[in-house]
């Protein structure tokens, strides 16, 4: 039972991260290897709000959203946008996001150092779980992360299908030059999407801070799971990525548990391999992810 709750929290946080990654990939075709560093930035916002301003960690969400969103926008506007104009290959884009990630590691570490030296707050390997509150006898993180994912599903649906901006966004994704022909400022649409993606990352970061152990190095460790989630979801399907994130989150915890109980505990230390296995099998067998699997299953039936 406990492990199910744990897994649910992990999986929902992961799926929020996957949505952000998928969003920017779908819209601008950039697999953003720096995506999880936005989440770590959000984690530090939560640390600042909780330990320095002595407030509830969840109050950091707006700040995390804005700060991470702005960082993400910076990456797009000043780096990727320009790069996309100069080269058609995807590779410099990947390398650019990786470079940005290295740059962010420096920034995050400086931030952590500053927090420690100015406020004597432990800023590495910290966890804010003890600052979590209880809602209906359940940890708030469970309720809130589930609620956030649900809001994300509904909110994205509303935004994409019911608002003018959503239609503009879908048009820009499908055919950028045609969208421009119909007076859509596609550049603005892309910028908003990157901001949103970073903001979602930052929000997930606040949840991470309440459940995980925060450290500038966490970004690298988390990245494979987030990519696996997005890829299992199809990499271009926003709803797929939510499901993909849940699949990866639950499997990492429950499959490890199941395998270890049946084949021996040595398997536990191989856990980091799980997301990679998902990535490889999905892309090799069903490159379009879950939707393709579902379709194949339906055909069989």
């Amino acid at each position, binding site marked *: 039972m406990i492990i199910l709750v744990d897994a649910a929290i992990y999986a929902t946080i992961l799926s929020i991260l996957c949505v952000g990654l998928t969003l920017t990939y779908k819209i601008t*075709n950039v*697999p953003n290897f720096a995506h999880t560093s936005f989440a770590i930035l959000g984690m530090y916002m939560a640390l600042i709000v909780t330990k320095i301003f002595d407030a509830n960690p969840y109050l950091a969400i707006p700040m995390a959203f804005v700060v991470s969103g702005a960082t993400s926008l910076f990456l797009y506007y000043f*780096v990727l946008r*320009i*790069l996309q104009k*100069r*080269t058609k290959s*995807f*590779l*410099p884009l*990947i*390398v*650019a996001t*990786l*470079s*940005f*990630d*290295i*740059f*962010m*590691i*420096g*920034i995050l*570490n*400086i931030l952590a*150092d*500053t927090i420690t030296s100015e406020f004597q707050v432990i800023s590495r390997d910290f966890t804010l779980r003890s600052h979590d509150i209880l809602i209906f006898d359940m940890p708030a993180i469970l309720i809130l992360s589930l609620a956030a994912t649900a809001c994300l599903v509904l909110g994205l649906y509303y935004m994409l299908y019911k608002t003018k901006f959503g239609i503009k966004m879908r048009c820009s994704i499908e055919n950028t030059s045609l969208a421009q022909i119909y007076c859509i400022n596609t550049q603005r649409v892309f910028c908003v999407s990157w901001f949103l993606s970073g903001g979602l990352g930052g929000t997930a970061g606040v949840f991470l801070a309440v459940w995980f152990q925060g450290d500038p190095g966490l970004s690298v460790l988390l990245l*494979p799971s987030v*990519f696996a989630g997005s*890829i299992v979801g199809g*990499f271009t399907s926003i709803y797929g990525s939510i499901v993909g994130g849940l699949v990866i989150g639950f499997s990492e915890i429950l499959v490890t548990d199941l395998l270890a109980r049946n084949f021996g505990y*040595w398997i536990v*230390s*191989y856990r*980091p*391999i799980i997301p*990679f*296995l998902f*990535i*490889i099998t999905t*892309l*090799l067998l069903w*490159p379009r992810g879950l939707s393709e699997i579902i379709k194949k299953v339906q055909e069989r039936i």
Partner: protein
Amino acid sequence: MMLEPWIIFLADLVAIFSIYLIINLSLNLEFGFAGIPNFGKVLAVGAGAFVMGMLPIGLYGVMFGMTQHSIHDNLEMTQLINERLAVHPELGFLVFGITISVAMAVGMLLGLLSSYPAIRLRGDYLAIVLLAFGEMIRIVGINQEELVGGTLGVRVPDLLSFVPEEYRFLMFSVLLLGFAGMVYFAVSKFTGSPVGRLLRAMRDDETAVQALGRDTTKIKMKVLMVAGMIAALGGLLYASYVEGVVAFGYNRLNWTFLPFVMILVGGLANNKGVLVGTIIFVAIRKLVIYFNDGLDGLIPFDIIWLDYLLLGGIMLVVLMFRPKGLMPEKPNT
């Protein structure tokens, strides 16, 4: 008698440069010429190093009739072997030769393995799959102690045991430069031949090459195999240079990401560009490491982080202002 600092600096630079040049040339073959974004470069590099960590010590063990366990008594064993090799250098070269052939064969097999996704996928999807492939070697290496000593790693018998201790690394740098020169020569010959043109044609328009009756699947397999061989050689040389293999070190940053940056800096599909990119990058990195403590106190944060900011920043600047590299590919050659 210690060496002059500038000789040490240069020798170390040459060593790292030579190893990266070998790896970068193989990556350029795959990505620059054939258009296969091998984001799992570390796989073949690591495999080469792993062979170096496993095979020679076993061979010497049999040769010298040693009873120790190659991993549990690893240090003791390598020390004994090194003492013998100091007297019989020819044995060292013999075993080194055998190890190279085995490592290259393993690299070839891994290239064949990478060709499975390379034939089926394109672009960033392929890059991500290969990246996942590459991660495997480190995770398995850390967790399977019997391979290369798990988390601690193993030590490797020193080929140059007969060289006086203080000249050992200098000598090895010369040896590495020799290897790098050979690889450079071989790769240049290869890419200068009609095969090189065919590869570039395939990269630019695969269907056109297929229409000419060429089997692009086979071409890709062959390229990946050749590149795997070269990369494994690079990994093996690194392991013998440091006289040890630690699975932790074979991560995507050191052996996939940095090589990509170097060939992007230099220029794709251009061996001279790769040479230039490698030397510039390795030299800049060394100079940054060397001089950044001079800035201590001038910047408002810990000097350590400057390394990250500079590495990330320099790469971004190069990518943005020279997206085709310093020496872009020449058309129609």
